C-alpha cells in the first residue's frame, strides 16, 4: 500500500497528464462529428482486424482437433464411397457409355426399331415377340439389340411380327470375345438369374480379370463385332478343366425390356447363303 502511495506521489503528474488528455479526447470525440466518425471508423477497423487475428489464432490452435475430425470423416467418406461405387456399378452397368459405344458400333448397319409385345424370363427357353415382321424386312437369323447390349436372334417371322430367341434361352449360342483381346467363346444361359449368362471355351492362357468387358466377336453375320454384352462377374474352370468358364453380368435387363432394334446388315443374306453353300459342300 505504501509502495502504491509512493508510486502515485512520485508519478502523479503522469497520472494527471493521462487523465487530462483522456478528458480532452472525450471532448474531442464527443463534440466533433468529424473526429467522432473517424474515431469510430478506425476503432471498428482495428477491432475488426483484432477479431480476425484472434479468430485466426484460435483456428490455428484448434487445427489439431480439426485434423483429427477430418481424418475420421475422411475414413467414413472413403468407406461410403466404396460402398456406393459398388452399388452404382451393380445398378447402372455403365449404361451411358455403353449406349454411346453401341451407337458407334452400329453406325454401319441399319437398325429397325421395334416394340416388345410379349416377353418372359422365367422359363428355361424364353421367347420375345416384337411388332416387326417380314413386311418390315425382318428375317430369321437377324440380330436384335437394345440400348444396353444384345438381346437375341430372330427365330421366326410372320408378316407383321417376329419371334426372338433371346439370350435367356438354353438353345442360344452367341459368339463373344473379351474386349481388347482376341479370345472368344460362346455365350449361353444356364437358367437362374436373368442377369447372368456364361461364356465358355475361353482358353486357359488368356489373361483377363473380373470386370473386363465382353462384346460380340463379329464371327457371324448376325451381329457386328464390338457390341456390348456384359462384364465378367466371376471366373471358374470349365467342367473338363481345359478352359475357363466366365460368368457374365449381362448389360441387358430382360425383365424390363420394351424397346429393341433389329440389326439389318447389308450383305447378311449373301453372307448367309455363302456360309450355307460352304456347309453343304463340306458335308
Amino acid at each position, binding site marked *: 500500500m505504501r509502495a502504491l502511495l509512493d508510486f502515485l506521489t512520485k508519478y*502523479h*503528474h503522469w497520472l*494527471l*497528464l493521462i487523465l*487530462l*488528455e483522456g*478528458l*480532452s*479526447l*472525450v*471532448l*474531442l*470525440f*464527443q*463534440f*466533433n462529428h*468529424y*473526429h467522432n466518425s*473517424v474515431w469510430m471508423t478506425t476503432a471498428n477497423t482495428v477491432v475488426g482486424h483484432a477479431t480476425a487475428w484472434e479468430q485466426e489464432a484460435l483456428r490455428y490452435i484448434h487445427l489439431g482437433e480439426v485434423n483429427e475430425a477430418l481424418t475420421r470423416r475422411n475414413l467414413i467418406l472413403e468407406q461410403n464411397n466404396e460402398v456406393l461405387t459398388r452399388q452404382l456399378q451393380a445398378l447402372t452397368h455403365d449404361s451411358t457409355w455403353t449406349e454411346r459405344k453401341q451407337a458407334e458400333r452400329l453406325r454401319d448397319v441399319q437398325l429397325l426399331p421395334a416394340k416388345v409385345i410379349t416377353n418372359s424370363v422365367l422359363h428355361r427357353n424364353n421367347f420375345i415377340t416384337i411388332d416387326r415382321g417380314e413386311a418390315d424386312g425382318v428375317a430369321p437369323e437377324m440380330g436384335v439389340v437394345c440400348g444396353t447390349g444384345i438381346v437375341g436372334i430372330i427365330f421366326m417371322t410372320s408378316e407383321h411380327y417376329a419371334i426372338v430367341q433371346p439370350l435367356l434361352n438354353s438353345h442360344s449360342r452367341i459368339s463373344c470375345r473379351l474386349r481388347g483381346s482376341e479370345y472368344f467363346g460362346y455365350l449361353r444361359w444356364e437358367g437362374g438369374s436373368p442377369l447372368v449368362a456364361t461364356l465358355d471355351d475361353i482358353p486357359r492362357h488368356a489373361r483377363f480379370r473380373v470386370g473386363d468387358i465382353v462384346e460380340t466377336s463379329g464371327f457371324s453375320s448376325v451381329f457386328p463385332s464390338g457390341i456390348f454384352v456384359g462384364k465378367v462377374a466371376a471366373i471358374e474352370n470349365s467342367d473338363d478343366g481345359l478352359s475357363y468358364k466366365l460368368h457374365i453380368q449381362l448389360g441387358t435387363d430382360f425383365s424390363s425390356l420394351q424397346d429393341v432394334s433389329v440389326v439389318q446388315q447389308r450383305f447378311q443374306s449373301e453372307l448367309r447363303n455363302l456360309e450355307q453353300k460352304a456347309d453343304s459342300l463340306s458335308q
Partner: protein
Amino acid sequence: MLLTALQRLLWMTALVAAQLFVFNHVHLFGYATPLPFIYFLLLFRLGTQRWSILLWGFVCGVLTDIVSLTPGVGAASMTLVAFIQPPLLALLVPEDAIEDLRPGYDTLGFWGYVRYAVVLTFVFCLAYFLILSFSFQRPLDLAISCGASWGLTLLLCLIFEGFHRAHE
C-alpha cells in the same frame, strides 16, 4: 500565491479574449492561423508544481476550445505542452539560476528564450494541427498550415515577451 493565481487568471483571460476577437479571424493565405494563447504556458516560473501547470494548461485549452469551437483540440495540445514545459525550462536555465526563475529574455538570454519558445510553440502547433486534421489525407496542406501557424505563433510570443519585459 493568490496574487500569482490572479495574475495567471488575468493573462489567461486576456489571451483567450485576444484569440476570440482577433487571432481567430486571421487566416494568412488561407493557411496560417496564429495561436498565441500558448504564451500563457511560457510564463510559468521554474519550480512551479507540475500538476498546477497541467491544470492551468488544460483549463486554458478548454476555454480556447469553447471560443474557437474546437472542443478538445486546444485542451489536449495545451496539456501536452504543459507537461513538457517544466523539464524543458530546467534544461535551458543556467546552473546558478534562482529557484523561481521566470523565463524571459533577461533570465535565459535572447537566444535561450527563443530556443525555449521555439520548442514549446512547435510542439504545441504540431499537436494542435495534427489533432485538428486527424488525418494524413493531405499531408502538404497539413505541413503548410502547421508550419505557417507555428511561425506566426512564435513571432507573436516573442513580441508578447518583449512587451512584457518592457512593461516590467
